[in-house]
């Protein structure tokens, strides 16, 4: 194994006018790691993800993917390098069927025949096979989340970013999601943003806490959950 981490940000900063949404964040994710990102609303988690995927161009700092800088690359180019994202508000093709959504994600890198072979199995794995012919725009929030997750999995990216994947899901769907994340984590690295502490407890090993655009603390999940500083920022008490 090489020493070059899968993902590394160096002093990553994103400013909107006078507001600093992400401030000098240094974060390292190794190959096949599972990292959870938590933090109160407005801590800069989603903005951080947007900087990683080329949806926003950071004001300062650098993003390195296996040592290669991603800053200035288009979203499609970053996706092709092996970064997949499930956005906070599901970003799906509403006017198309579930099957077509997954087809499009699979067809980017595979030939027609390979897509045909992979498609039914993938629909099953994600648990959306019964919905295959429905229009995505007519589905419930949790189901749309699963469709988007299926699209991310279809691209087989080395780094998977999940922004609040459990939001709007039924318990059954959450169970499936946990299983999926664990299965994916065998070969892929994941960064998961989530508010639901029950969910975090079920999947997390290492947790990074964001607060006001910076990394407040980074540690093993057991220590994070008992850390008074973390409790303070979540309950709104001003951290000293």
């Amino acid at each position, binding site marked *: 194994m090489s020493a070059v981490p899968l993902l590394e940000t160096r002093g990553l900063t994103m400013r909107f006018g006078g507001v600093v949404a992400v401030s000098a964040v240094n974060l390292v994710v190794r190959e096949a790691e599972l990292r959870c990102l938590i933090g109160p609303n407005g801590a800069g988690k989603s903005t951080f993800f947007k900087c990683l*995927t080329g*949806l926003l161009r950071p004001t300062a700092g650098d993003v390195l993917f296996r040592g290669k800088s991603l800053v200035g690359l*288009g*979203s*499609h*180019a970053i*996706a*092709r390098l092996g970064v*997949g*994202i499930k*956005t906070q508000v599901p*970003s*799906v*093709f*509403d*006017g*198309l*069927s579930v099957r*077509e959504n997954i*087809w*499009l*994600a699979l*067809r*980017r*890198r595979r030939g*027609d025949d390979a897509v045909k072979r992979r498609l039914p199995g993938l629909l099953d794995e994600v648990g959306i096979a019964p919905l295959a*012919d429905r229009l995505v725009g007519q589905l419930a929030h949790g189901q749309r989340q699963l469709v988007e997750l299926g*699209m991310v999995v279809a*691209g087989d990216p080395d780094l998977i970013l999940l922004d609040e994947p459990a939001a709007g899901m039924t318990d059954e769907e959450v169970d499936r999601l946990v299983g999926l994340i664990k299965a994916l984590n065998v070969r892929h690295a994941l960064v998961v943003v989530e508010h639901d502490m029950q969910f975090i407890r079920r999947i997390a090993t290492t947790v990074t806490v964001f607060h006001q655009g910076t990394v407040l603390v980074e540690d093993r999940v057991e220590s994070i959950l008992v850390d008074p500083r973390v409790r303070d920022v979540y309950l709104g008490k001003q951290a000293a």
Partner: protein
Amino acid sequence: MRETARAAASSLLVLAVGVLLLLALPRLLDLHALINATIFASLAILALSLAFVWGFAGILSFGQAAFFGMGGYTYAVAGINLGDTTGAIALGILVPALFAALLGYFMFWGRISDVYLGVITLTVSLILFRLLNGTAGDAWRIGDAPLGGFNGIPQTPGINWPGRPGEALTPDGVFYLAMALVLLVYFGCRALLASRFGRVMVAIRENERRAELLGYDARRYKLGAFAIGGGIAGLAGILFANCVFVSPTMFSLNYSAQIIIWVIVGGVGTLLGPLAGCVLVQLVTTSLGSAGWLNANLMLGLILIGFVVLAPSGLAPLPVTAARSLRRLFPGARA
């Protein structure tokens, strides 16, 4: 699956009606009416070009008239200079397609928003309209072809058999060709939409950001779609030039607006709808125009307002809606 069934049904309908018209009209119509029918066919192809670009690639182009006129002018100028129209036809498709690609390059790589895209395409067609209007006099000629200012080029050559210059097609022949091309363009678009390119194009219309996050370069697909639309509009211009002759009115605001009305009346997001919308609106406006008791443009405006208010998704979904309300009225019957 329902989607494919519907597409298959409309394909069959177009094929049946198209072949029927192709065989029947030359026997039923006098020469004047047949030439009019040929003009309708050329405009139907123009309608398809916008139906494709707007309805499936999500690019609202106000400039299809620019490619339409450019196709006609290129064909006329090349035809006069070459003597043979076969190469002129190829150029009449290629030049507007390349021009659309160039224009598209600046618009899509510049990440221009949809509204400005409409403004730019409209402006380009008006600039060309102005430009060609001002080409009267001997100074304005390309090779042997005088551009003729607002009079256009009355000596626009008729299509001849490939490799046999001087042997022009009869009006019947041009009609057959135009109808065959309507079918060819329609089924060509269908095939394209069923291909990987077409499906990604529709995905980009649905959600460009998601398509990008999956690794598709949206700019390339939009550029491709826009260039194809330009080529189709050019082909329409060639056929139109054969029935009338080329003049700057082909670039006029009148045409730019009409094309959009055809597509709205027919239904954005379908191919069959705009085809029907074009023929229907043309029939109404020309018959009113010749009757002379109501201004055709006024009628066009009323039709547009009527559709936007009463049937915003156009003619295309009406059979489905009608079937559904029939079923509601007669719940026992199986429609």
